[in-house]
């Protein structure tokens, strides 16, 4: 039981962060506005969680210009995917053991 709880990753303990990782697990580069629409959250809230995940190197960011508008896209790193998968397994195990 203790192992399972240890496998739960603090970095993902938030609805928005779980959402960001879920979307990035099954999609390659996803831009900010798409994430915002999917997760139904505010600019500031989303930006701060993205930044936190990026600082932990769980996701990476790229900036492009589409015409004159900047477009920011995000992608999960291999490490981020692995850690998120571990987190999901831990969640599932926790459910099974209860």
């Amino acid at each position: 039981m203790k192992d399972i709880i240890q496998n739960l990753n603090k970095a993902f303990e938030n609805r928005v962060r779980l959402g960001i990782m879920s979307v990035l697990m099954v999609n390659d580069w996803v831009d900010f506005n798409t994430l915002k629409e999917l997760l139904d959250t505010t600019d500031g809230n989303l930006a701060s969680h993205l930044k936190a995940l990026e600082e932990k190197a769980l996701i990476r960011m790229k900036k492009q210009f589409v015409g004159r508008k900047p477009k920011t896209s995000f992608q999960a790193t291999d490490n981020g995917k692995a850690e998120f998968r571990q987190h999901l397994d831990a969640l599932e195990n926790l459910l099974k053991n209860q």
Partner: protein
Amino acid sequence: MEKSKEFKDLQEIKSLMERSSRFLSLSGLSGVSAGIIALIAAAIAYYLLDFGRIKYTTNFYLLRPMEEFSYQMDLLTNLLILAFATFVLALASAYYFSWRKAKKYNYSLWDHTTKRLLFQLFIPLIAGGVFALILIDRNDGTLLAAVTLIFYGLALVNAGKYTLSEVQYLGISEIVLGLLAGIFTCWGLLFWAIGFGILHIIYGLVMYYRYER
């Protein structure tokens, strides 16, 4: 209490993965309406082909040696207009019912999943369409039903990865029908009506009762 939180998290994760990677607005009713339109079109084609007395499978110029050349061209033009109108009407009805489903479930109809789905769908579809036109240009209609069914089936199998996965089963059925239509070429119109008409209706009804009621 803890349990319900984790359970809800996992459900939310699953739903987000689905919604962000697949086009879910595709409605079963789109299939039903496309099928009905195809059946009507097949009936009109049957009428244009003089109730099967003219074999659309044979060389268009040799259809009726005694008749004037212009008659053949009129027939060909009418069949092409019919085919094009069927395609446009079926697409429009698919769009309409998808729009309704998107509104009902609060999905967004036009996002990256839509673009990806259309891209993957239209590559085999356009290849098949152009190839069908090449066959017509060569005055060889023998394999028209087979070619349209097979390429449509391939398009669905390809697109099925980006929408409800059941679409792939419909695609495989269309491919099998297309191959049969290639063997029994004189029954081409019948196979076409089964593939584009009846299969669409059956598939649409199954999907409607499974997901939308």
